[in-house]
């Protein structure tokens, strides 16, 4: 049955030529159907429901909810912290990926496995342990306190929790690219007289950059949507360390379903815009690299 369907699609494939380049793999229509169903049921319908629910009270109320000072402050806290966490993850994730791809040392496979741990750990656990460590009497916090550095219950704590959940995305995006990078290219560059900085900026960075961008975008997205780990370490002070997700929960707690949905839609739109910009940037970078290569 499947084969027959695939056969048909091959025969009538011409009408689909708009959507696809001719491919040796059969079954385009079937897989496109699955993709469409999946996107509709899992992504599109729930998101549409949120937006519709948010708009139920009318446009004026919607605008009033999403532009309240406290809500605006929460966008700043959430997106600002998420951006800082993504930058931090990009830097140290790249470094870690580099070490894992280029060097061998005892216990390397353990470190490699540890990288994935934040994916599996319930985020609340991460939040609670970070808070315990960095609170003013915690193992680490007690040494930072005399220096005047407060981590728990400040924006620094938020960035830290967000980096924890975000940085594996960077490592896992960049690592395979670095592993595939042919060292012969660097050797060739060196033999042509390129110093190590030139080799890094001219060969490694251009190859790894799209992957780094993808990884950082994923880390950012994860951080912007994070609730479980942040809530414990943030301190949740209105206007200062209150994340948008908490405001959504707050609205629900008041049985204000449409208010919650309105803020969720605003957050959705902001995140989508940022992801779209990153995708465009990535596309642009790849195109430029393609031209140059």
């Amino acid at each position, binding site marked *: 049955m499947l084969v027959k369907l695939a056969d048909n699609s091959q025969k009538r494939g011409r009408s689909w030529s708009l959507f696809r380049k001719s491919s040796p793999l059969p079954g385009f229509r079937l897989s496109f159907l699955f993709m469409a169903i999946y996107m509709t049921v899992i992504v599109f319908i729930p998101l549409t429901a949120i937006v519709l629910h948010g708009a139920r009270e009318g446009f004026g109320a919607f605008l009033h909810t999403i532009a309240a000072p*406290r809500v605006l402050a929460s966008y700043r806290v959430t997106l600002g912290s998420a951006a800082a966490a993504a930058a931090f993850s990009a830097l140290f994730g790249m470094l870690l990926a580099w070490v894992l791809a280029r060097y061998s040392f005892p216990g390397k496979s353990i470190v490699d496995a540890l990288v994935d741990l934040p994916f599996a750990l319930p985020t609340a656990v991460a939040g609670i342990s970070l808070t315990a460590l960095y609170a*003013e*009497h915690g193992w680490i916090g007690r040494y930072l306190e005399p220096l005047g550095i407060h981590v728990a*219950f400040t924006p620094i704590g938020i960035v830290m929790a967000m980096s924890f959940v975000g940085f594996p995305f960077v490592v896992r995006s960049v690592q395979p690219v670095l592993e595939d990078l042919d060292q012969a290219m660097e050797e060739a560059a060196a033999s042509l007289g390129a110093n190590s900085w030139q080799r890094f900026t001219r060969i490694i960075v251009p190859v790894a950059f799209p992957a780094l961008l993808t990884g950082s975008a994923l880390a950012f997205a994860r951080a912007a949507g994070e609730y479980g780990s942040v809530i414990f370490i943030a*301190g*949740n*002070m*209105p206007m200062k360390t209150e994340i948008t997700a908490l405001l959504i929960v707050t609205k629900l707690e*008041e*049985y204000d379903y449409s208010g919650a949905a309105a803020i969720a839609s605003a957050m959705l739109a902001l995140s989508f815009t940022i992801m779209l910009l990153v995708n465009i940037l990535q596309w642009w970078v790849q195109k430029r690299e393609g031209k140059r290569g």
Partner: protein
Amino acid sequence: MRSLYSRIKLLILVNLVLVASASVVPAQSHLLNVSYDPTREFYEEYNRLFAQHWKATTGQDVVVNQSHGGSGKQARAVIDGLEADVVTLALAYDIDAIAQNGGLLDKDWQSKLPNNSTPFTSTVVLLVRKGNPQHIHDWDDLVRPGVKVITPNPKTSGGARWNYLAAWGYALRKSGNNEQGAREYMKKLFANVPVLDSGARGATTTFVQRGVGDVLIAWENEALLAIKEFGPDKFEIIVPSATILAEPPVAVVEKVARRHGTEIVARAYLEYLYSPEAQELGAKYFYRPRLKAVADKYASVFPKVNTFTVLEGAGGWQNAQAKHFADGGTFDQIYGK
């Protein structure tokens, strides 16, 4: 002839099934009790107690399942379709919400059981570190500069709303019913709050385990539990000169219970909470018993307090919600510009 015979056979079979199922169903009933967080251990033990009592009086088995979470979240789950036969929540406002949004029980639910449908009470007290280094004796000491106060966010925590109303009620009385004075007190109080946890347990953890803050505003049962868990050499309880009478209510979710055919056993489940055995059990878990005989027995655990109800302190939950915790209410004004 043959078809008649097979019809009779079928009829007998159907009858047999009906009789069998009829005799099975009432023999064991299932209840779902949807409750808030700190009651988990109490209801685990109470469910066993009630099952024995029900078996002894009616000969039937009853299995009670429990669900726990933040009070508001639990109420929303019931509104959204969690099939609770009974709800036992932290504040009447949450059960009101079920009555209003879901229409699952009558609006006058609170008059259906004795004592405002609250078999136990608690109160709001101040937990300080051993030796009371900051000399905290009453609500006034919480607004002194430099004192760090831990209390959860009243917008997300039912328990925190009791705390807030306790402080508000005190301030209002102190200033001779001058709301402006009470508002200023609350502003100063929350200026001393370094962390707003989203739930009551979270705030307790922040104070007890993270070592943050000088004083925790808490339900008496949480404070007593903290002392029991961590030892009386670490913390002590300060009873303020006036505080709120916390009344966590219980109710049968009538519409669901009717559908499940569990109305009678659900009602009995809640009524039995007022029995001497259950009252004693509640006292063991640091809830103040309503029954005078049991209350007297545990007088050493629960010091005398001077309390006011939500009705006296804030004009009832609907008013309190609209005035203090709704969008733009007194709590939002504290943090507004």
